[in-house]
């Protein structure tokens, strides 16, 4: 059943969000610490086990892959509901702080990629529509 996949995804998200809130509470900050990342790790662990044992049938998997494929449209909707006006009106100091933070962080990517040996090869080329 498709809903099994969706429910598994939902369960991972709720559990991850709970753990993230708990960590935030424990270290005394009002933020969810890594909830999404924890949910992702949970999903990877549970789904790969369930797949291997054959309990997560392809039809149930499609409940997860649908949401994975709908990701780009969701991001487009997210872009369309950003507070772009406030960002633009922030003035020179805000623009400079934001831009410089991005530029310097970008410059660090090749540097840090060397940690743990040569960087892995690029992903193979694919072309086609999103979500396929």
């Amino acid at each position, binding site marked *: 059943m498709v809903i099994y996949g969706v429910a598994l995804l939902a369960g991972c998200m709720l559990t991850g969000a709970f753990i993230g809130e708990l960590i935030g509470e424990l270290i005394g900050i009002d933020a969810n610490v890594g909830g999404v990342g924890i949910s992702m790790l949970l999903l990877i662990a549970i789904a790969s086990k369930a797949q291997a044992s054959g309990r997560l049938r392809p039809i149930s998997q499609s409940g997860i892959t649908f949401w994975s494929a709908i990701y780009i449209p969701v991001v*487009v909707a997210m*872009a369309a509901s950003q507070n772009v006006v406030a960002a633009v009106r922030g003035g020179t100091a805000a623009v*400079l702080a934001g831009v410089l933070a991005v530029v310097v962080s970008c410059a660090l990517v090749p540097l840090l990629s060397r940690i743990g040996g040569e960087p892995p090869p690029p992903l193979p080329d694919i*072309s086609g529509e999103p979500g396929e």
Partner: protein
Amino acid sequence: MTEIFDLVARVMSRYGLVTAFAVVGITVWVSYQLSTRLTRGHLHGSAIAIMIGLLAAYLGGVFTGGGRGVADLEIFAGIGLMGGSMLRDFAIIATAFGVNTRELARAGASGVVSLFAGVFVSFAIGAAVAYSFGYTDAVSMTTIGGGAATYIVGPITGAAIGASSDVIALSIAAGLIKSMLVMAGTPFIAPFIGLNNPRSAMIYGGLMGTTSGVAGGLAATDERLVPYGAMTATFYTGLGALLGPSVIFVTIRAIMG
């Protein structure tokens, strides 16, 4: 005639989320047409779609005076739900299905290093920019530094150490600029920084930290990289909110005397 428009508008607002699916679907389709016809696929369709989204958000903000882009227009309110953090995070988590766990484990160490490097570097840059614009007190410098981390870290830090509201607003604006720049700029910078494999995506997510920016930017570059970048980026705001008002504030205060 106006009655027909009223009726259409009423249907669109009543079925907000469904309207969002249709509108976003059309936008994505148009973007992929533009991508193949105008740029022969050089500029990714999703990159164009995200830029159209940001442009629409700007116009929506100017038109309504609100802070949620097109979602402040009643007929497009569903776009705010579709692109809100609940569905966004739900979809991000789903992308983890089928990631390469070996690659994830191997990139783990560099991911952690990049998180700390990203937080400290962003705070330092934001604080330096604040200083050069005349905000020479440690509270303002740390708050604006937090904004250079993410637009959530800025206000959390500012509230914790007692920054003034205009400084907090400035820090939010800095974070928004960063997020939008990452969203729209990642596909252009990617070839120059080797952003084409899971490990560099994890590092990129850890250094940038803005979940919305990284989520959008990697989607526009190569959507297979999304889970790796999102995985580290999601820890960044928590780390920044933890270090900002504590270690980093104390350090900046010590330097500034």
